[in-house]
């Protein structure tokens, strides 16, 4: 169900601009890994290369290898659609499909791909996914209502349910709580802790307390200056990063003396 990710010498480009340089990182299966760092350091860009979403942006390309349980995502002949169905993604802003009901949003991954699914299987998948996203009790009586009618935190959990429903091996989260209030954030963080049992979770966050609360390992990205590429500075156990980092830049950042 869950797979590990190994990245080797990855360079990420926007056309000719080198955005992230020379990343080597090994992410264990069934763990939560947090990416922290200042804005513009390339952590979101790097995250998007892990399921080939980076190349959706015009001019976006990648050099290097990303291995999902040993299989290189960027080998010629690999279908990015296949990659994305195994590595799901939750975005910064909740983005449920406005034309679909809550139920259809959860089933989006199945239905949009035109797969046939029986009524009972669909019901079971909807309930299982919504339970997995801690949203079932709040929406079970209004599954046919539009997903856009939910609160921001509920919408974000709906997006997580939608991601779980395609049964990925890895879930990538790009600042999933930055648009949410503290209570919804707590709900998502609890959920991440549960998701760890079944999935490999990678989360980008600006909130260092959040990284400390939810992650097993933390990667600190930094940028030398405007126009320079972002780099992975330090990657270690979360406790080590926050209490005893090896790099001066990491210590400055986590202790708030950055800049």
């Amino acid at each position, binding site marked *: 169900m869950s797979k590990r990710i190994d990245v080797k010498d990855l360079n990420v480009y926007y056309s000719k601009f080198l955005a992230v340089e020379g990343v080597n990182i090994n992410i264990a299966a069934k763990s939560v890994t947090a990416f922290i760092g200042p804005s513009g350091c390339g952590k979101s860009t790097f995250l998007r290369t892990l*399921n080939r*979403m980076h190349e*959706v942006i*015009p001019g976006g390309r990648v050099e290097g290898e990303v291995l999902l349980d040993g299989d290189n995502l960027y080998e010629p002949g690999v279908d990015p*659609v*296949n*990659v*994305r*169905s*195994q590595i*799901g*993604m939750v*975005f910064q*802003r909740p*983005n449920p*499909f*406005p*034309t679909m*009901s809550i139920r259809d949003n959860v089933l*989006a*991954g199945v*239905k*949009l*791909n*035109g797969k046939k699914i029986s009524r009972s299987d669909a019901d079971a998948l909807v309930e299982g996914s919504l339970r997995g996203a801690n949203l079932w009790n709040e929406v079970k009586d*209004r599954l046919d*209502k*539009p997903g*856009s*009618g*939910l609160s921001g935190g509920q919408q974000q959990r709906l*997006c997580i349910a*939608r*991601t779980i429903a*395609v049964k990925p091996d890895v879930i990538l989260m790009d600042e999933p709580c930055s648009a949410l209030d503290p209570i919804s954030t707590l709900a998502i963080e609890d959920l991440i802790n549960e998701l760890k049992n079944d999935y490999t979770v990678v989360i980008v966050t600006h909130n260092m307390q959040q990284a400390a609360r939810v992650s097993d390992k933390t990667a600190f990205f930094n940028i030398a200056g405007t126009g320079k590429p972002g780099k992975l500075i330090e990657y270690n156990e979360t406790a080590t990063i926050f209490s005893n980092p090896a790099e001066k830049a990491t210590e400055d950042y986590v202790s708030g003396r950055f800049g």
Partner: protein
Amino acid sequence: MSLTKTTPQSETPLAPRRRNALSKGRMPGWAVPAIAVAAVILGAALSTLGGFAVASFAIYAALLFVIGATVATTVIEGKRRGKNALALYLIYGAFILALIPLASVIYTVLDKGLPGLNMHFLTSSMNGVTGAVDNQSVAEGTPVVGGAYHALMGTLLITLWATIISVPVGMLTAIYLVEYSKGGPLAKAITFFVDVMTGIPSIVAGLFAAAFFGIILGPNARMGIVAAVALSVLMIPTVVRSTEEMLKIVPNELREASYALGVRRWRTILKVVIPTAISGIASGVTLAIARVIGETAPILVTAGIASNINLNVFANWMSTLPTFIYYQILTPTSPTNIDPSIQRAWAAALLLILMVMALNLIARLVASFFAPKKGR
């Protein structure tokens, strides 16, 4: 105006009534209506000096009111509010000015078209209606014989076929421009030529279709489908433009959300992007239809003119409501008694306006039917 309505009166009955200190230096509520009445009276007096006319009366009264109200507001309430009043009255004036032609058209068409619009007019054609028939009905005072059923069906069929041709072409072009092209030379060329097509005069589109089918089917190839092709030349750019705009405003996040679920691009477009934009696309298409439904010239050179019912767009001449109106006015059926023809023309004009209005209503219904559902 309601400028003085903000004055909060003291609620306690014990307190003596007094003007709120905060509303000092405001015009009392009766000032603007009083100026309006004065302007109307003075305007009437001024316009009688050079022989009374409604137009000069309205212009004088409006000018006097705008000047009077602006000056009064400036003097009492200050410069800023004076400018505000001037802008406000000018905006109202522009609105009324824009409304006059619309109201006039609706009134005239209703006034002249309603007497002729009846079931007989809607269900019969002009087949067999000659000048003698019209002369007889005028002489005997009987209802006008002959109607626009053939033209109504012609309008519906030709517009339907024009829509069937242009909606797929236009929508697919817009989808290519927004979703697939990366701003390359082909996309730039398409955008340029669509812009050029928008400016093509309708008669040129008609001549193009006539000449094009003339090459294939020989001269005198006049039938409904040729007219439909001519109209689609006019419709396609509108459809492309409106669809393009609607697809552009679909948030990129929805496309990314779909890609991230492992959905292919064409399925994303088909199942996420288009459903999200469909209400706007539908109303854009309806407006494009409304644009071409009243075209006259391209129909005349492509479908000719007919007085009998022809429901086959692939053979023989056809009439539409605009060509019917044109023909009834220009060559009345009975040259000596033109009133029946005039009445038929106005009735057809009313029918055309009703059809366009119905189309607009349908567009709104379609838009609200397809629009993303709200509610919790």
